[in-house]
């Protein structure tokens, strides 16, 4: 390796050259390597060797071909032979990741702004709806005397940002749902969806129905 008073530093930088060629260094390390390459021609020459190895390794691997269809057929035959798997509810983080995964940065920026506004509006509108329960003849709130608190089946729902008060009102009436609590952080409402607990298969079917409804932005079972 290079032999000057900065030899140990240069040795550690030389060790990083393969990752610099592959573009997998942190920004800070990449900048260190770039600076060293700019001031040390011998290091730059060695980096050229690294780049040769990098290219040759890619070419070598690309000439290895691909597995036959047998691998995939064998895999899915074995998966089909596996015992049926109980469907587990994904974690909240996974749901959020799945949601944001489908958005471009520009969409995300606009959606964030729209969502904040919509949540504020919806909170006010639904608050009005809840306070009017019993007088409108519409859906019942948790305070309705016919259902004891804590009894029933519940979901958390965030309404779609574009849903209007009429949309939400119609949605709640049509499904005989009642708002139990909310909105909490992120505009989530706890909603009673049945007067008695639902079987898991019924709850799964309901979740699919809710998630397909344009009024609903997000829905998940809760206790």
């Amino acid at each position: 390796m290079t032999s000057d008073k900065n030899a140990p530093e240069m040795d550690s930088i030389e060790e990083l050259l393969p990752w610099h060629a592959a573009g997998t260094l942190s920004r800070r390390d990449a900048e260190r390597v770039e600076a060293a390459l700019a001031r040390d021609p011998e290091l730059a020459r060695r980096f050229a060797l690294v780049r040769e190895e990098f290219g040759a390794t890619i070419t070598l691997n690309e000439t290895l071909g691909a597995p036959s269809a047998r691998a995939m057929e064998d895999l899915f035959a074995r998966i089909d032979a596996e015992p049926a798997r109980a469907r587990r509810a994904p974690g909240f983080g996974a749901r959020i990741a799945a949601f944001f995964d489908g958005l471009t940065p520009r969409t995300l920026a606009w959606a964030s702004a729209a969502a904040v506004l919509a949540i504020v509006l919806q909170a006010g509108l639904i608050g009005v709806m809840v306070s009017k329960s019993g007088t409108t003849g519409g859906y019942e709130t948790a305070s309705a005397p016919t259902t004891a608190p804590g009894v029933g089946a519940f979901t958390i729902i965030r309404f779609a940002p574009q849903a209007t008060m009429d949309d939400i009102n119609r949605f709640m009436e049509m499904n005989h749902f009642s708002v139990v609590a909310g909105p909490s952080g992120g505009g989530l409402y706890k909603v009673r969806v049945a007067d008695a607990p639902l079987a898991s298969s019924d709850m799964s079917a309901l979740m699919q129905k809710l998630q397909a409804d344009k009024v609903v932005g997000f829905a998940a079972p809760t206790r």
Partner: protein
Amino acid sequence: MQTSSDEVLISRIANGDRLAMQVLFARHHVRVYRFVLRLVRNEATAEDLISEVFLDVWRQAAKFEGRSAVSTWMLGIARFKALSALRRKPEQELDEETAAAIEDHSDDPEVTLAKKDKGAVLRECLTGLSAEHREIVDLVYYHEKSVEEVAQIVGIPEATVKTRMFYARKKLSELLKERGIDRGWP
């Protein structure tokens, strides 16, 4: 067009989503196959092993905690499967493969250079590295894994990753020199 991230696919696979499994397989099976093939040097064995790797992914998806990239996790599984398969192989088979790997070295350096361009010789020398050195070179250059990710896959400290890569490259230079190509390093 938006595509689901690997992490989202794993979450769906954990729920038994067969389609998500197909997407993940389509996305990664060639690279996983090549990684395994470079270790076991047998196409039929490599094909069998990728089925096992992805079956493990199907079974273990619910336990994936997202501490590493999905591809890093899968390469770790693939490596374990490949090394287990190598341990199960009869010694005779290994000897035959070792012989096949080195028999191309019989030409003297000048003849070799006359027959092939430098790139071809370089690729042959990459093939002639030990399994340990091939593995790290492939992970860094072909699979584009960071120091930290290689450490996770191979199960060694990050400092060892750097020194192992350095010695793999040094060995490569020695093999090239034997074939008449002196790179002036190390």
